């Protein structure tokens, strides 16, 4: 590391060396996050098809293997799908707004990746350890809706436009509930930094995790997350039985795949955030020997994996919400619940220290 720093200093001079060194280091780190993420997305699609298949008593993809090894049947499916998508032609419909049509998938994908900059993977491993990490993530995820809206409008298709309108209204509504749920978290942790939020949940066991005092907020956050990513049962933006495929009906080949990648990396992001904020991030469930031996990163992956399984489980289980039911759930159920819970947390924080430092409140209010 220091050697590389010196090398940059010698090559570009004392003024530009350090700057370019930081840029080069960050670019490498970004690749270190994005490449595993893309691999995770690829295998999440495989997991989705397999898990839903088993829930519906089917086998799922089981043909494509690596090097013809039979027991790896299906494991090369995501690779084959990716190759197929890259080879296909991108068709731009006549009458479409060409620039915006091509820009839309990029605008969905970029915020989905940018949000990962502040996600801590273990106490020290984080790309940008900024103070306002939680706010930054909210801001970035709220940018993602532009890709959907622009895709729907630029396609010059009624189905795509209907999907875009539905998605815009839905995402804006659920963002409020999500924000309020996170306000409770930052009241308890007294910090917007994601690493500090996890550190606030330290203390011995899973009893210290924020999921216990904030259980309603956890549900609100996770369900809002499902709605924000336009996943079933909130997938009216796609609604293949009503509006064909919604906003991406005109997209093909790699342009469609970019939407697909963005949706799945957003799913992983929501699961990761729920893990970090409510389920103690990289902390083991009980702070004793066999659990503490497993590295924190593995715990993080396990928790994320469980929440992602829930995403797939929901999709296999629930019928799609009707549009007015979605709006009712967001505005008339979630927002009042979150407002009441903010009040409750605020009241508890004002309790005299003798009560606050007694069991069980001392687990969470430090």
């Amino acid at each position: 590391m220091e050697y590389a720093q010196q090398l940059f200093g010698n090559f570009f001079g004392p003024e530009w060396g350090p700057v370019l060194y930081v840029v080069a280091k960050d670019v490498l780190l970004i690749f270190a996050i994005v490449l595993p993420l893309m691999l995770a997305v690829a295998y999440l699609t495989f997991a989705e098809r397999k898990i839903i298949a088993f829930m519906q008593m089917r086998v799922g993809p089981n043909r494509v293997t690596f090097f013809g090894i039979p027991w790896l049947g299906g494991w090369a499916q995501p690779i084959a799908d990716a190759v197929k998508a890259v080879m296909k032609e991108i068709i731009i419909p006549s009458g479409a707004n060409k620039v915006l049509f091509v820009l839309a998938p990029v605008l969905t994908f970029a915020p989905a990746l940018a949000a990962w900059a502040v996600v801590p993977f273990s106490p020290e491993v984080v790309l940008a350890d900024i103070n306002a990490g939680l706010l930054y993530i909210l801001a970035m995820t709220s940018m993602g809706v532009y890709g959907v809206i622009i895709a729907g409008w630029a396609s010059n298709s009624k189905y795509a436009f209907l999907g875009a309108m539905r998605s815009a209204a839905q995402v804006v509504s659920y963002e409020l509930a999500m924000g309020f749920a996170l306000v409770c978290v930052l009241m308890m942790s007294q910090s917007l930094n994601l690493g500090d939020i996890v550190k606030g949940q330290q203390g011995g066991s899973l009893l210290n995790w924020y999921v216990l005092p904030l259980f309603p907020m956890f549900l609100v956050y996770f369900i809002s997350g499902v709605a924000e990513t336009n996943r079933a049962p909130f997938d009216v933006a796609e609604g293949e039985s009503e509006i064909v495929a919604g906003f991406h009906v005109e997209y093909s080949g790699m342009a469609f795949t970019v939407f697909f990648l963005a949706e799945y990396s957003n799913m992983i992001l929501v699961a990761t955030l729920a893990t970090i904020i409510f389920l103690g991030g990289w902390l083991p469930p009980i702070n004793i020997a066999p659990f503490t031996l497993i590295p924190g990163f593995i715990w993080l992956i396990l928790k994320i994996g469980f929440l992602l399984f829930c995403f797939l489980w929901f999709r296999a289980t629930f019928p799609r919400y009707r549009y007015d039911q979605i709006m009712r759930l967001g505005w008339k159920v979630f927002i009042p619940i979150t407002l009441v819970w903010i009040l409750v947390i605020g009241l508890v924080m004002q309790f005299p220290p003798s009560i606050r430092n007694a069991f069980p409140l001392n687990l969470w209010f430090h």
Partner: protein
Amino acid sequence: MSFPDIIFYFFSTVLVASALGVITARNPVHSALLLVLAFFTSAGLWLLLEAEFLAITLVLVYVGAVMVLFLFVVMMLDINLDYLREGFWKWFPFGAFLALVMATEMAAVLMGKQFGADQMPAPPARAADYSNTKELGRLIYTEYVYAFELAAVILLVAIVAAIALTLRQRIGTKSMDVAKQVAVKREDRIRMVSMPSEKKE
């Protein structure tokens, strides 16, 4: 020129260009999207000034919510561009007058002796762990608490007004009462009829 300077000029160029685009673009959707770009780049400029809370809130509130609704409305409009351009010369003197007033005001602020750059020394650089979110929160809830509450009440009035304006009783809507739907029992919908089996001819 140092690295922050280059970033500053880059953001400023993009900001000015996109702001010009907002008023010159022929398509209102393009204008709205360029306005989004303008907001985003000005948030970048605020980040350079170490105002990270304001910068992120600008993106979160204006880009993430307000402009989405804006775009929502603009996309639904069926705009005839010729009609829009009809009154251009009629309204040009008025617009030019407004622009002149704004330019004069800006000149008075930027060139005046009281507000010039030399009157405002650069604030000292803060340490990396300095959180201006906390600082803002402290100020808002202590020193400026009345102003803050006043703003909150005004917003509340606006919410109530917006709902009151759109709330009207219409006859013939097919809206459903979810509580009633959930409370439905089997007996309300299904009538069991016992029928004797019929003989085949």
